[in-house]
């Protein structure tokens, strides 16, 4: 769906995005994560045709975005990070305004706008002035606005900034809903926990580099190395540790009062066998699960590494 190849962008001497290559398949909800100033907004603006890259290509559905702006614009819906609305304009007129910018007929707009406002839960506000809406409502209105021309790709730049927890949940549900409708969605954020709940793939950006990208599980596996297993028990700690150590390819990484962590390279059957052996040996196993590295630690690790790699090259820093 979205294919970015070797994208570069600099502001004067400052390299904001460098060698960014990314492929987002159709129907994905892609989370774009990175600390402040990582270059997320810059990348998104280039994808939406608001900025010209210094080098590299962007393809949407196989069409070169830089050479075919007209076609591409019909395929993208863009929600910027900060935006205002017009005073003295009603919600219905707001939708009508943007619809007519896509040269749609007013009857068509009215129908689609009605559906969209229902989707974003604003159907009772059509005659309200947009500047009187709450921040969360404006955000949702902007999403509805970005969908008026039925784009295949929806790009949202930090749609959750400034929203309260309730509004965030609503936004998340809205995005999941859109995903189930078959839209490809790119969402940028630095709030990781939300992304992990809804995205199925992520890209982590730091200092203009894409340091990790792919399906959420794959990225985590990559970063955390071999598989981690957590076994919890009530009694029989020594026996459990001994049994675990007997298996080849298992390394006990930490032992706590009621749990131990293993890194292993076993198949599922082997794991089941090991747990069975423990139970046979009267270890009171209360549970076991694969350790899910959470996104926060993943994020910290990945961005740390990138910092270390660039140790000698403070170019990005010195130009701030």
């Amino acid at each position: 769906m979205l294919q970015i190849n070797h994208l570069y962008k600099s502001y004067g001497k400052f390299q904001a995005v460098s060698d960014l290559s990314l492929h987002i398949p159709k129907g994905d909800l892609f989370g774009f994560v990175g600390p402040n100033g990582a270059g997320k907004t810059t990348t998104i603006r280039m994808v939406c045709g608001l900025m010209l890259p210094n080098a590299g290509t962007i393809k949407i559905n196989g069409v070169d975005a830089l050479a075919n702006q007209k076609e591409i614009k019909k395929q993208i819906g863009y929600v910027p990070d900060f935006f205002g609305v017009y005073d003295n304009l009603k919600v219905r007129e707001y939708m009508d305004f943007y619809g007519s910018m896509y040269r749609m007929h007013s009857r068509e707009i009215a129908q689609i706008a009605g559906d969209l406002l229902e989707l974003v839960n604003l159907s009772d506000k059509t005659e309200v002035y947009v500047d009187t809406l709450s921040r969360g409502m404006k955000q949702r209105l902007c999403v509805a606005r970005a969908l008026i021309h039925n784009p295949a790709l929806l790009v949202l730049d930090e749609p959750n900034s400034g929203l309260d927890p309730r509004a965030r949940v609503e936004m998340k549900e809205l995005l999941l809903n859109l995903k189930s409708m078959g839209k490809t969605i790119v969402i940028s954020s630095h709030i990781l926990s939300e992304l992990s709940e809804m995205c199925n793939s992520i890209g982590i950006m730091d200092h203009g580099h894409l340091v990790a990208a792919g399906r959420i599980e794959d990225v985590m596996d990559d970063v955390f190395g071999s598989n981690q297993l957590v076994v919890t028990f009530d009694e029989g700690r020594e026996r459990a540790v001994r049994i675990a150590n007997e298996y080849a390819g298992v390394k006990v990484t930490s032992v706590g009062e009621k749990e131990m962590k293993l890194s292993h390279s076993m198949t599922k059957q082997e794991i089941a066998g090991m747990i069975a052996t423990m139970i046979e040996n009267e270890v009171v196993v209360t549970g076991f699960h694969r350790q899910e590295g959470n996104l926060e630690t993943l994020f910290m690790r990945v961005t740390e590494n990138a910092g270390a790699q660039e140790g000698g090259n403070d170019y990005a820093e010195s130009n701030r």
Partner: protein
Amino acid sequence: MLNPIVKKDVKVQSRSMRICWGVFIYELILALAFFLAMIIMEQQIRFSTSNIYSAMVWLYPVLALTQIGILGLIVPVRTASAISGEKERQTFDIMLTTSMTAFSVVMGKVMTAMIQSMFFVIASMPVMALSFVIGGMSWGYLFGFLALALLVSLFSASIGILCSSLCKKSISAVIMSYIIYIVFFLGTFLPYLLYEVALMNAAYSTTQTTNAALTYTYGENLYLFLLVNPAVYLAEFFGRVMTGESVVNTFATLTGAHQTKGLINHVATGSRWMVISTVLFVGISFLFLWLASKRIDPIKRRAKKRAKKQMQQPDMQVIVQENIMQKPEDGQ
């Protein structure tokens, strides 16, 4: 189909209280101009035999020029803030991600400015009509004035838009617009003035008159710069309306430009000057609008060509990227 920006902007503005105050102040200034003109007329008539009614025709140029002055000053302010206002809200970015081309965004803003000007001008029609009803002027000139007001607002809106596409802040855009006015009003006189000075110097320094005569033949063409001088245009317009004579023709005869072989001779005869001048003003306006639309278009045509070239020559693309990758070291 109506430009969506016009539709939206006119709707939004009609709901705001600002436009009411705008019309109020506009009418107030016109009323002042009206009374001032009346007082002066009364003074004049006391010493002459003509009656007050025939003098009323002079209300037409006074009120018309007052309005054109106000429009010329206000329209750049409105257009400059129209664009920067959209930029501040980032609605400008959203607009540019839609199917709207940069040029239609610019045209939308200009058309809004023109419609708004007409709003003011039409509101003042009853006052203007006095010079027709009482002064006995021909009604055609009323439409002449409407056309002139449209041209003025097109021209000043295009200057305002161009400046606001060049400047970040709307205040600097407004100042820049006024500077461009000065260039049009005074700058277009300069070539001719310099030529006159050079001519005088030549006349003093050489005794050979042939030399001066030679420059005299072609130098008069520097008059042609005055085709885009708004003051000359207005003088020509009102001169024709009030006296039925062309100011430019008279001037050309006086200075002897009519005797020259240059282009000026053809341009300054009959109503050609007016027609060419109008065409030029419209042309310059669209040139400015086109430049402004190029400025605000994030993906410029040149860049598109480059992107296409890159696609055709993948090797070159790699080279470009390598260059960029080396940049950080260069910088250190």
